[in-house]
């Protein structure tokens, strides 16, 4: 029996994208973006603090890092929680030593369970970005919209209360969304989300609740992706982060400002033998002229100011 006819029908075969979330745009054809004080690269350092419940179902799929062993999977639960107890402090110390403020992406469960950690992050001048409720609550197409709305409201209430910040950035657990996620986020005061991996610069996405920005968040030089998924060493990760920086930095000569994001999972990058590579990677970037270490909200604000300004 042949395939149903809809396999040879292409309703969205047209110019641009096959959805209405954003228009097609080639990075190199866009107006140049100017960062504050003529900076070439906005360095966005983003530690992640995550909590993986011991009794998760892993349905409909496990977020990366999700528990895999029969209940109670103590090995993975505690290995991930290490990031919240120990690893994050190595990252915070490293950032403090280098004079870097960045964005800490926190599951709301981390703020609820470990409010002292959030207080310390805030006191150090970092931004809190909402990283969903916890790593079990993944957003996906099968989630009823009302449930998803409640999850987002719950997560934002907890994180805004714990941090005293407006919390305008969002990273979904596992970078997964439903069709409704972006609209729900926009309706609850989120200005930017970091799930989409299709650009090296911020861009605007349309939602029923108004625009939201997609922020570039390095997927393939992410510490967990490189060192755990791809099973490469911290030395190789360091080399790849430097290589990434070099190319982005070089491109600023003709392309305008760029964003260099450095995601750092506290339970991965905060392990003693890896923290040296983290320090080297960040110091390498900072060793160049015109590198502006900033929070996601600051980067977005500078991006909006620059793109709103008239161009030559």
């Amino acid at each position, binding site marked *: 029996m042949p*395939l149903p006819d809809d396999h*040879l029908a292409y309703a969205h075969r047209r*110019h*641009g*994208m096959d*959805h209405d979330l954003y228009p097609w745009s*080639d990075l190199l054809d866009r107006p140049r973006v100017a960062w504050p004080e003529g900076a070439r690269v906005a360095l966005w350092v983003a530690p992640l603090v995550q909590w993986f419940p011991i009794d998760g179902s892993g349905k409909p799929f496990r977020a990366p890092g999700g528990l895999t062993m029969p209940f109670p999977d103590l090995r993975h639960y505690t290995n991930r929680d290490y990031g919240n107890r120990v690893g994050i402090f190595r990252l915070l110390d490293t950032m403090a030593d280098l004079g870097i403020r960045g964005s800490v992406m926190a599951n709301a469960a981390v703020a609820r369970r470990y409010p002292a950690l959030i207080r310390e992050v805030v006191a150090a001048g970092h931004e809190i970005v909402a990283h969903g409720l916890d790593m079990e609550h993944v957003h996906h197409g099968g989630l009823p919209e009302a449930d998803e709305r409640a999850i987002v409201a719950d997560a934002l209430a907890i994180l805004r209360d714990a941090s005293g910040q407006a919390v305008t950035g969002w990273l979904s657990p596992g970078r997964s969304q439903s*069709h409704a996620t972006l609209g729900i986020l926009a309706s609850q005061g989120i200005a930017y989300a970091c*799930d989409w991996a*299709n650009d090296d610069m911020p861009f605007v996405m349309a939602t029923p609740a108004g625009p939201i920005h997609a922020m570039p968040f390095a997927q393939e030089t992410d510490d967990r992706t490189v060192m755990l998924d791809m099973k490469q060493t911290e030395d190789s990760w360091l080399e790849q982060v430097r290589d990434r920086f070099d190319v982005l930095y070089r491109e600023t000569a003709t392309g305008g400002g760029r964003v260099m994001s450095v995601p750092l999972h506290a339970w991965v990058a905060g392990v003693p033998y890896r923290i040296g590579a983290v320090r080297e990677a960040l110091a390498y970037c900072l060793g160049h002229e015109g590198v502006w270490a900033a929070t996601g909200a600051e980067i977005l604000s500078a991006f909006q100011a620059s793109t709103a300004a008239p161009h030559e």
Partner: protein
Amino acid sequence: MRTSEPGDPGLYDYLPYRGRPKVTWPNGAKIAVWIAPNIEFYEYDPPKNPQRTPWGRPLPDVLAYSHRDYGNRVGFRRMLAAMDEAGFRGSVSLNVALCDHHPEIIRMCADRGWEFFSHGIYNTRYAYGMSEEQERSIIRDSAQTIRKWTGQTLDGWLAPALSNNSWTMDLLAEEGLLYTCDLFHDDQPTPLNVRSGRLLSVPYSLEMNDTIVYNTNSYSPRHYATIIRRQFDQLYREGATSGTVMCIPLHPYLVGQPHRIEPFAEALAYIAGHEGVWRATGREIARHFLDHHYDAAVAANAAANAAAATA
């Protein structure tokens, strides 16, 4: 003719590397190197194929979708610059709907004299489960789309997401294509057994393919550059005896990442720095082989088969 035993797809005869008719390339080149960027469009909300689910997560799989979209928004231009620098044209393995979605990209390739061959309509529409007539219709759609947007003839085929049926090669030959990229059994072109006409297998590669390198084998960017150089060195040496083919299949969403482009560009420059390298397209390799070596290869197959039958 397909005369092989059950369990063998019957597409080609066994003709070992040792002792074949010598292959020569234009201007005495030892090796034909061709680069095949897969310029793809993956759908946000594709229909379900009974045999393969397009995305790993429930729809919308925004992370996987956006990762692919990176190739068209960002990665393509980096890949293009690296190829321009080393003087390579591409042979685009094209999801032909991309002509409609991003004609800007098609124009940049066409302006450089690149070849376009088909990689199906979308990379989220598989040939699995299609009837012959359905599959023929996507071949014709591809030919018409490529002609409309580029003026070129459709000469090559890489099945969408490598989804094949048992009759696919027969259809390609009947529709007048010259070559397929779906077979990985050799480092030289091979005449295929099809029910009518002629069809060649032109060596493509899984091992040199950045999706396999990065998404399956999880190699580092610099190791990718290393294996490209090693692959080239060996095939270049062997090409002194009989011409070889090296293909580098690419995906802009992978090779075009900032941490990967520079080692790749250096590897291409390494290849370009050698004498006796034919920087070819898939079509050029197929035509040259058809014009100069096809008959000898078919005769060698016949002789080998006859010898096997009387042994």
